[in-house]
């Protein structure tokens, strides 16, 4: 049993490495539009994976995650527009504001559990959206805030590699956090907070930590995304946006590491391929989520693994049977 798992793990590392290498050499064959789709997928991979840390691993069902991406973008965009600061300062501002706001929100919802937390974080993101829309004299509201691009050249190849590197680094950091004892603390909090507390897990500390951590990651992703699409509007804060992230994670598998990595690209690519169908897309995805929740709650990733495992096991049994009995 132990050995088979170790074997599977090595295969996973190998697969991850191959995918990264594949993505690194892919631009040679990809057009600008295809590159754009990959960039979009990578952005949503970061968002979905970091939201999964909150909802999937810690049981903090936050509905404010998209607002941190927007916050990162707006913090940098506003500073650059009004104070003409260099991009690096904008980047640092994005990190600091999302970190502080994440900590503040974490404090606010610390005592809340389950549904209360979902509603309170939702209230936070809605009030943030309304404030941005209402303060249109500064933020230009629905007209959109212009944000300078990161590179002078219009070629998306630079953004492509930037997002690829960003995704790899951030996923690696998240993976290491989850592998460390912190990952076990978070899972313990999700399973039974009271029991975790009784066993000496500092639940306050780790809940605050994960909220701040995930928010900062969303802020970094939002900063780069904002400077890629070069215009920011309150649409980025809408409930649809977090709905999309929830769909991606549930589709791939809530509380699994690979879940968001599969769910996000699948949903982004499907939406782009079937652009003409417009709203039918969302009808279809939300129906999928309902079916997944009703039937196989662990999501596509887990289903695929189980099928592979069974397949692997069958083969082994077959091999064992083929051996001539002494």
């Amino acid at each position: 049993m132990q050995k088979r798992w170790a074997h599977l793990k090595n295969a996973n590392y190998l697969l991850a490495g191959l995918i990264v290498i594949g993505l690194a050499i892919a631009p040679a064959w990809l057009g600008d539009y295809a590159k754009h789709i990959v960039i979009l997928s990578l952005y949503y991979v970061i968002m979905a994976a970091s939201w999964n840390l909150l909802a999937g691993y810690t049981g903090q069902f936050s509905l404010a995650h998209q607002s941190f991406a927007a916050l990162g973008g707006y913090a940098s965009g506003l500073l650059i527009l009004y104070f003409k600061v260099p991009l690096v300062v904008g980047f640092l501002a994005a990190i600091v504001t999302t970190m502080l706001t994440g900590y503040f929100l974490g404090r606010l919802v610390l005592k809340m559990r389950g549904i209360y937390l979902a509603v309170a974080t939702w209230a936070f993101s809605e009030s943030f959206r309304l404030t941005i829309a209402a303060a249109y004299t500064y933020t230009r509201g629905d007209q959109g805030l212009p944000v300078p691009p990161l590179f002078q050249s219009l070629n998306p190849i630079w953004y492509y590699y930037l997002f690829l590197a960003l995704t790899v680094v951030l996923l690696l950091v998240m993976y290491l956090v989850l592998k460390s004892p912190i990952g076990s603390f978070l899972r313990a909090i999700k399973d039974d907070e009271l029991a975790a507390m009784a066993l000496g897990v500092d639940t306050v500390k780790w809940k605050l930590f994960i909220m701040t951590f995930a928010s900062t990651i969303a802020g970094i992703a939002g900063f780069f995304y904002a400077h890629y699409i070069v215009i920011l509007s309150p649409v980025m804060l809408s409930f649809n946006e977090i709905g999309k992230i929830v769909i991606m994670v549930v589709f791939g598998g809530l509380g699994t590491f690979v879940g968001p990595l599969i769910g996000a690209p699948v949903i982004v690519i499907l939406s782009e391929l079937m652009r003409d169908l417009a709203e039918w897309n969302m009808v279809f995805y939300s129906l999928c989520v309902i079916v997944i929740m009703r039937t196989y709650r662990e999501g596509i990733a887990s289903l695929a693994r189980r099928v592979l495992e069974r397949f692997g096991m069958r083969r082994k049994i077959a091999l064992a049977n083929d051996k001539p009995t002494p």
Partner: protein
Amino acid sequence: MTITPELLLNFTIAGLMIGVLYALMALGITFIYSIMKMINWAMGEFYMLGSYVQWALVVFLLGADYWFVGIIGSMILVFVVGLIVQRVLISPMFTSGMERRDEYGTVVTIALSLFLRNLMTVLSGPDTRTPGRFLPPVTLGTLPVSGDRFAAFVGALLLIFLFYLLLNYTWVGMAFKASSQNRVGVQTAGINILRIDQAAFAIGVMLAAAAGALLAPVFLVYPSNGAIATVKGFEIIIIGGMGSIPGAVLGAIALGLTESLGSVFISSGLRDVFGFVLLIIILLIKPTGLFGERERLS
């Protein structure tokens, strides 16, 4: 703009009127929460369904003179939809031995909300529709009010009163209250809790549909018109405390007044922000809301 007592009175009346309509929405959410301990994120979509049914009935079948029949019709129809949705999507929370009910309830109703909203956009297009005006304007004191808005106010008051009677003076109402206090206890008394759940969900979404149908001529009919109704409903239940019926009514009136008076004294552009400021302040002082009870750990 100078502020005269008369103006103040007018805005207080306007605030009260909209507050009562908010209350209808909030009552549905809080009622469902009190029985099943779940939040229905698709509440606004039931409001939307109610307004669409009212529009369709008035335009194609009844004509503007019989608009009140349309309201009853849309309430009945959405009640039935609620029964079916609860049976198919919500009851597995309790029958299939699920571990993470909160997570399931939240994800499924968020998906349901996206599903209904986008399905309606596909089916009827994103156009804004109106069932027309039913009633001539009326004057309350010195405040001119559109007749439909006044009718919606009266209708909402009537429904809240009926809901109050149902809850306090009927056997079913007692069963609802008992279920909200102790789900196991009512079962030992021989009440079928699954039936109670189903009825509670259907009544809750029916109240939202009633709000949608009553407000169809005022706030118009389009696929995402439930979003603002959901926002107000959730604000109110956080302010009033989740699961508390008096909290929902008082919270709704408080919100209506805050918005109305805030737009006089401060700025009408920030109208939608006031509710959230009130909400964040309440959360900081008393995280369970004005009438909310402290949640028990585990």
